[in-house]
C-alpha cells in the first residue's frame, strides 16, 4: 500500500514543474490519425514505423476469408428476403474488421461477438447454419460456445465487454495464455458496461483486446450524438489502456494493428483498445430504412474504399494474387453460398418440449408441471388435427 500522499510525492514544494515533466499519458494515447498501410485505392503507403506488414500468406488468407465472408453476407441477406431468416444485420463493408479480427487470434483464444459479427464467426470456421440459428429463429445460439471458444452473439449492447474481462482473467488465473477479443460498435461504447468492462480488464490486467468497429452509426444515431471525443480510441487513456485507431477499410492495417494488440495482451500487459474507422454499407438490418438518416452520396463515398477491392488490388499489384487464384477463391465462395442456401432451404424441426430443457440444469417441479400441460395441449391439438 502506498503510504506517501500522491499529490505530495509528485511535486517539489518550491518550484513549478517545467512543461517537460514526463507525460503520464505517454504510450497510452492513440496516434492522432488512424493507422493506414494502404491508400484507399490499394496502393501501399510508406512503411509504418510501428506496424510492419503481415506476411504474404496471412494476407492471402485474409483475402480468401474476406471474399467468402462477403459472399456469405450477401447470401444471408438474400435468405432474409426469402423469409428464411427473421432478421439479418449485415456487415458488408466491414469485411476487413470482421475477418482481420478473428485472423489475429489463435484457436484457443476467445471471441466475444455482437449480433453484427456473423461474418466474423463464419470466418472463424463456425458452421454458417449454426451461426444463423439465432437469426433464423429456431433457437438462440446455434453453436457450442465452449467448443468454439466463441461467446453467443451478444445483443444487449456492451455487456460482452465485461464477460470478456472475466473470461480473460479466469483463463490467466488458471495459467492459460488465452486472449479474449471483444467486438463492439461505436454506439455501444456509450453504455456503462463498456466502461465497466474495460476498467475491470485494466485493473485486473486481463488480456482482452477491445475492438470497436466505428461504422459511424448506431442504427440511425450518428457518431456525433454518441461522443464528443477526438476519437473513441481516446477513451483508452482514461483506463490506463493503450489504444490505437486504424483505417477499418484497410485490411492490412487492421490485421497489423490487431496482431500487435493481441500480442500486447498475450504478453501480460493487460488490455488494448482498437478503434477501426469503417462503414456499414447496408441498413442496420433488413428491417431498417437507412435512407431515412443518410444520403446516397455518403454511401457512395465509402463504396470507393471497398476493403475487398482494396486488398485485391494490392495483392494483384504485388503479385501475391493472380487471376486463377482469384477465380478459385470466387468459386469457393460460390460453393460456400450454395451449400448454405441448400441447407437453409428446409424448415428446421424444433421440439416445443425442448423449451423446458435448459432453463435449469434440471427442471423445477413447476417446469415439470408446465411441461405436462404443454404436452397435453400438443396432444389435444394433434387429435383435433386428426379429426379435421
Amino acid at each position, binding site marked *: 500500500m502506498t503510504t506517501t500522499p500522491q499529490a505530495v510525492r509528485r511535486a517539489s514544494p518550491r518550484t513549478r514543474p517545467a512543461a517537460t515533466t514526463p507525460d503520464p499519458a505517454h504510450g497510452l494515447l492513440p496516434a492522432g490519425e488512424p493507422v493506414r498501410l494502404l491508400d484507399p485505392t490499394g496502393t501501399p503507403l510508406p512503411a509504418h514505423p510501428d506496424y510492419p506488414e503481415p506476411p504474404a500468406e496471412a494476407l492471402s488468407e485474409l483475402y480468401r476469408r474476406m471474399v467468402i465472408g462477403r459472399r456469405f453476407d450477401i447470401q444471408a441477406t438474400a435468405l432474409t428476403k426469402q423469409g428464411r431468416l*427473421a*432478421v439479418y444485420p449485415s456487415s458488408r463493408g466491414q469485411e476487413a474488421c470482421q475477418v482481420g479480427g478473428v485472423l489475429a487470434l489463435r484457436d484457443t483464444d476467445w471471441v466475444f461477438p455482437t449480433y453484427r459479427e456473423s461474418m466474423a464467426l463464419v470466418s472463424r470456421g463456425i458452421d454458417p447454419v449454426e451461426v444463423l440459428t*439465432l*437469426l*433464423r*429463429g*429456431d*433457437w*438462440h445460439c446455434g453453436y457450442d460456445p465452449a467448443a468454439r471458444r466463441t461467446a453467443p452473439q451478444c*445483443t*444487449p*449492447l456492451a455487456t460482452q465487454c465485461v464477460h470478456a474481462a472475466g473470461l480473460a482473467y479466469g483463463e490467466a488465473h488458471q495459467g492459460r495464455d488465452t486472449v479474449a477479443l471483444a467486438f463492439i460498435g461505436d*454506439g*455501444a461504447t*456509450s*453504455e*456503462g*458496461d463498456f466502461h465497466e468492462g474495460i476498467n475491470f480488464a485494466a485493473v485486473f490486467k486481463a488480456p482482452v483486446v477491445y475492438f470497436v468497429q466505428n461504422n459511424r452509426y*448506431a*442504427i*440511425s*444515431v*450518428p457518431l456525433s*450524438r*454518441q*461522443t464528443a471525443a477526438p476519437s473513441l480510441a481516446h477513451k483508452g487513456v482514461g483506463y490506463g489502456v493503450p489504444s490505437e485507431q486504424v483505417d477499418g477499410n484497410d485490411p492490412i492495417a487492421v490485421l497489423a494493428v490487431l496482431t500487435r494488440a493481441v500480442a500486447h495482451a498475450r504478453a501480460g500487459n493487460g488490455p488494448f483498445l482498437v478503434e477501426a474507422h469503417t462503414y456499414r454499407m447496408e441498413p442496420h438490418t433488413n*428491417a*431498417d430504412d437507412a435512407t*431515412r*438518416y443518410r444520403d446516397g452520396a455518403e454511401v457512395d463515398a465509402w463504396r470507393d474504399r471497398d476493403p475487398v477491392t482494396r486488398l485485391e488490388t494490392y495483392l494483384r499489384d504485388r503479385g501475391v494474387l493472380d487471376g486463377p487464384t482469384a477465380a478459385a477463391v470466387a468459386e469457393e465462395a460460390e460453393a460456400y453460398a450454395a451449400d448454405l442456401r441448400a441447407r437453409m432451404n428446409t424448415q*428446421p424441426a*424444433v421440439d*416445443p418440449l*425442448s*423449451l*423446458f430443457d435448459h*432453463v435449469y440444469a434440471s427442471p*423445477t417441479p*413447476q*417446469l415439470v408441471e*408446465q411441461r405436462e400441460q*404443454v404436452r397435453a*395441449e400438443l396432444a*389435444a*391439438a394433434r387429435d383435433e388435427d386428426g379429426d379435421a
Partner: protein
Amino acid sequence: MATTTMAKALNAALADAMADDERVLVFGEDAGQLGGVFRITDGLQARFGDTRCFDTPLAEAGIVGFAVGLAMSGLRPVVEMQFDAFAYPAFEQIASHVAKLRNRTRGALSVPIVIRVPYAGGIGGVEHHCDSSEAYYAHTPGLKVITPATVGDAYSLLREAIADPDPVVFMEPKKLYFSSAEASLPARTEPFGRAVVRRPGRDATLVAYGPAVPVALEAAEAAREEGWDLEVVDVRTIVPFDDATVAASVRRTGRCVVVQEAQGFAGVGAEIAARVQERCFHALHAPVLRVSGLDIPYPAPMLEHTHLPGVDRVLDAVARLQWDDQPDPRWLAEGSAA
C-alpha cells in the same frame, strides 16, 4: 370514424402533447430523425425541432437519469426504451430515483417522466426483444404502470401519462402496434386507475391486460360455442389497480381466470389472483386460475407460439372452473382435503 393503428395513436398523442405543452421533450435511441424503430416518434423532430425530439447516446441509465435531471429543471420528458430488455440497464435509475424522488423529498421534487417501453412478444423477435417486464415496475412503489390494449386507450392513456404529476412506466404491447381499429382521435377514454369491462358476460370473468386482452376477447368469443358466457375485464392501469371494477365483475360471475403474457411466477397475474380471492372469496365457485407465459426465458421465434398463452390455454383454464361443482382432481392430488 377513421381506421388507425395503435402506433399512429401513440404518435398522435405525443404530437398533441408536444403542441399543447412546450415543456414536453421526447427522446431516446433513434427517436429523432428515424422516428424510432417502431416509428412511434415519426415526424416529431421535423415538426418540433431537434431540441424537443432528439436522439441520445446509447445508454439507457443515461436516458432515464437525464430525464430525471430535466424534470428537476421543470420539463416533462417522455423517453423511449427501444425494447423491453433494453430498459434493464436503467433499472437502478428507475427503482432508486424515478420511483423514489418525490418520497425522498417529501414532495418537494416531483418526477413527471414517462418511460415508454415497447414490451412482450408475438412479433417473431429474436432474444431480448420480447420480454414482459411489467411486474418489475409494478412491484416498485412510486411508479405508475399503464398498458393500453386498444387504439383509443393508447392515445388517451399516453396523454394522461404525460400530464400526470407522477412517473409513469408506459408499457406498449408491441404486437398490437400495427393492428388497426376504428378510432377518432383525440380520444378520451376512462381515466387512470380504472379498469374496463370490454365484454360483458355472466359465467366467468377473464381479467387481462395489454397483449393478453385480445387473446381474452377471442377466447370469450370461442367460449360461446362451449356454452360459456365470459366477461372480459381490461386492467389498463396495473398501478394504481382498480379493485372495485375487477371485484365487482368476479362477484357477479363467481369465477375468474387471470390472463397475462408474462412468465407467471411472481407476476402481475399473481397479484391479481391474490387480490381477487382476498376480496371475493365467498363469491367464488372455484379458485382463481392463472394463464400466463411459461416460466422460461422468452423463446426463439419458431417456438414462441408454444410459450404464448393462446385461446386454447385460456379455454382449458375456464374448463377447470368446476362447472359441475366437482373439484378439479389436481386440487386434491397431494395431501388430504379438509
